[in-house]
C-alpha cells in the first residue's frame, strides 16, 4: 500500500526535499531549454545595401519610416514646413517604386506632423517586408519562436518559485526556520531559468550592426561633406546605420524640427538604460523577467535601437 504521507514531497525532511528540488529544477530547466530553444541555424547576413532594411535592423519599423522620411525630404519628394511634412507639389506615390516610400507619399499627401507616423498603419505594413526578410535570414527570431521561449521561461520560473514557496510555507508553519539552503537553491534555479530565457535564441542584429558601423566607421566623420539632394543614398545609409542624431543639421536642416522631440526622448531613454545597467552591474539582475516585452521584432514601439534586452526574451533574441 502506498504511504501517502511519504509520497507528499512537501512532507519530506529538509535534506531529502533539497535533493528532490535539485532534481526537479534540473528537469524543469532542461525542458525549458528544449521547448524554448530556437534552432541555431547558420544565419546569413541580409542585404546590407538597403538602408531601410538596416534601419529596420537597428530600430524596427519606426526607424525605417523615419529614415525613409529623411530620404524623401532629401530627394525633394516631401517638403517640410515647420514641424509638418507634405508631399511636394505635383508629387504623389508614383514618384517611387519602393513600397515604404509610396506609403509615406500617400500618408503625407496632406500635411502632417512626423508624430502621425505612429498612426500610419499602411506605412507600417509596408515595413513588414523588411522584418520578414530579417526573420528569413535568421537575423531576427520569429515572433512565434520568441513567444514560445518567453512562455517557457515564465512557466519554468513559476514552477521553480511556486514549488519552493510551498515548501517554505510548510516548513515555516511547522516551526522550522532553517530554510536558507532551499531559498538559495530556488534563487539559483530561477536565475538560471531567466538566463536560459535570455540566451536560448539567436540575435544577429547587434552583430551585423557592429560590423556595419566598423565597416562604415569613416561615414559619420565625412557626413558634412556628403552630397545632399539625393545625389547618393549615403545620407540614408548614415541615418540607418548610426541613427538620425548622426545626420548633421548642415546636411539635413529640418532634422530637429521633425524629430528633435523624439531624439531627445530616445536619448533620455538610453541614459536611463545605461543607468539601469550600471545599477544592475552593482546589485545583480534578479527577477527581470518581462514577457510583456515592448521589443517585438519589427514592432513599431520597439525601442530596440541600442540596448533593449532583459528578462525572458526581450528583443535581443
Amino acid at each position: 500500500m502506498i504511504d501517502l504521507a511519504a509520497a507528499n514531497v512537501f512532507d519530506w525532511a529538509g535534506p531529502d526535499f533539497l535533493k528532490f528540488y535539485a532534481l526537479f529544477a534540473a528537469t524543469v530547466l532542461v525542458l525549458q531549454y528544449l521547448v524554448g530553444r530556437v534552432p541555431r541555424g547558420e544565419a546569413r547576413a541580409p542585404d546590407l545595401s538597403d538602408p531601410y532594411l538596416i534601419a529596420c535592423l537597428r530600430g524596427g519599423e519606426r526607424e525605417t519610416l523615419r529614415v525613409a522620411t529623411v530620404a524623401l525630404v532629401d530627394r525633394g519628394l516631401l517638403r517640410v514646413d515647420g514641424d509638418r511634412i507634405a508631399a511636394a507639389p505635383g508629387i504623389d506615390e508614383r514618384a517611387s517604386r519602393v513600397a515604404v516610400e509610396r506609403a509615406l507619399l500617400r500618408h503625407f499627401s496632406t500635411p502632417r506632423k512626423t508624430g502621425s507616423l505612429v498612426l500610419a498603419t499602411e506605412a507600417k505594413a509596408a515595413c513588414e517586408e523588411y522584418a520578414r526578410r530579417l526573420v528569413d535570414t535568421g537575423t531576427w527570431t520569429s515572433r512565434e519562436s520568441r513567444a514560445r521561449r518567453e512562455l517557457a521561461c515564465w512557466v519554468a520560473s513559476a514552477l521553480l518559485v511556486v514549488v519552493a514557496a510551498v515548501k517554505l510555507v510548510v516548513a515555516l508553519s511547522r516551526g522550522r526556520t532553517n530554510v536558507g539552503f532551499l531559498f538559495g537553491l530556488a534563487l539559483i534555479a530561477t536565475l538560471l531559468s531567466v538566463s536560459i530565457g535570455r540566451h536560448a535564441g539567436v540575435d544577429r542584429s547587434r552583430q551585423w550592426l557592429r560590423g556595419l558601423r566598423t565597416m562604415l566607421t569613416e561615414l559619420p566623420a565625412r557626413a558634412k561633406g556628403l552630397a545632399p539632394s539625393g545625389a547618393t543614398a549615403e545620407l540614408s545609409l548614415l541615418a540607418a546605420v548610426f541613427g538620425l542624431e548622426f545626420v548633421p543639421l548642415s546636411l539635413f536642416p529640418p532634422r530637429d524640427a521633425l524629430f528633435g522631440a523624439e531624439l531627445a526622448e530616445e536619448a533620455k531613454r538610453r541614459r536611463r538604460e545605461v543607468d539601469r545597467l550600471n545599477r544592475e552591474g552593482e546589485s545583480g539582475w534578479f527577477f527581470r523577467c518581462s514577457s510583456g516585452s515592448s521589443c517585438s521584432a519589427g514592432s513599431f514601439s520597439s525601442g530596440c535601437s541600442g540596448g533593449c534586452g532583459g528578462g525572458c526574451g526581450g528583443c535581443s533574441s
Partner: protein
Amino acid sequence: MLVVNVAPTIARDRFGLGWRPELAGELLLARSRIDLLEVVADDWFDAPKERLRALQLLSTQFALVLHGVGLGLASVEPVEEARLARFARLLARVDAEGWSEHLAFVRGGGVELGHLVAPPRRDSIVAGLARNFERAARVVGSPPLLENVATLVDPPGSDRDEAIFVAQALAATGAGLVLDLHNLHANATNLRFDALAWLDVVPMESVVQVHLAGGRAVARGGVTRVLDDHRHDVPDPVYALLESVGERCPQALTVLLERDGDYPSLGSLLGQLDLARAALERGRARRSLVRTKALETAPDRMPTVVPDRRGERRILSAESDLNAVLARAYVDPAARAELVRRGAAACGASNCPLDEIGLELTAESLARKRARLAGSGA
C-alpha cells in the same frame, strides 16, 4: 595540403573595385553594380577582432579577393614564415576567393623599402621566386596569383626583358597572372618597349585577373615617365590594352579598378568600369574575327635565347646579396651613388649606364610611401 587551382572558374567576365574605407558607404550602396571587391590584405593583418568581424560581414555582401603588397616574393631572400602565417590566418578568417601578390621585393638585407620594387630580372630571382612561391602556397594553403609591377627604372642587375621574366616566373611557379595593365603601360613608357609585344610573349592563358589604374607623368632630366600612383583616372592607352587582352584571352576575366587616393565619386569609378567592360567586349568581338590568323602567326612565347647584358651582372658582388644591395641603394643616397658608379664602370658609361634618374625617382617615390606609412602609424 597544397591547393593547385589558384582561382575559381568563372563563367563570365566580372568587374570590381578595390575596397577603400573612404568609399565604403557608396560601395555598399552600389552592391548590385559591383561583382567583387579587392581587399588589401596587409591592412588587416593586425586588425582588432571588431574590424575582422566587419571584414567577415563584408564578405557576406561581396565576393572578395585578398591582395598582398608586403611579402616580397621576388627575392633571393626567403619570405619569413611569420608573414606567410599572418596571410594564412587572414584567409582562414575571411571567406575570400583567393589571394594574390606581386612580382616584387619589398626588403633586402634588413632594409624595409616600404613598398613594392621591381626586382632584377635574372635567373637567381626567378629561382628565389619559385622557392618563395612554393613556401607561400604551402603555409597559406593555396598559391597566390602573381602580378606584374610598375617601375620607374630598369631594375639594376636585370639581364632580360620584363615580358620574358614574367613568362619565366609564371612557368617556374605555375601561378596565374594578375595582369596590371597600367603597370604594363607605365613600364612600356618608362622602359621604352612595345606593350603589345609584351602581351605576345607572356602566356595569356595564365591571366586570371586584370588590374586597371591611373597614374601621372613625372618629368626629370628631359624625360617623362609614368608614375603608377593609383590617384588618377584610367588613361585611354590602358583601355586599348584591355581591348587587346580581350582579343587574346578566351577565358573569363576578373577586372579590378584600383584607386588609392584623390577619390572621385563612385559614379566616376563605375563609369570607368563601364568603359573597361566595353573595351573588353570590343576585344572579345575582335578575337572571333582574327583568331585563326593569330594562331597561324603566334610567336614562340618562350625564347630559348635570353638577352644577356653581361656588364650589369658585375654590379653585384654576389647573387645572394642581390636584393640587399638594391634595397640599400634605394634608401641610402651614398649606396645609390656607389651602385651607379660601379654600374657605369662595369657596363661602360657609353652603352649601358644605370638609369640614375630612374633610380632617383624610385628612391623618392619609396621615401614618400615610407613617410605616408609612418604618418598613418603603420
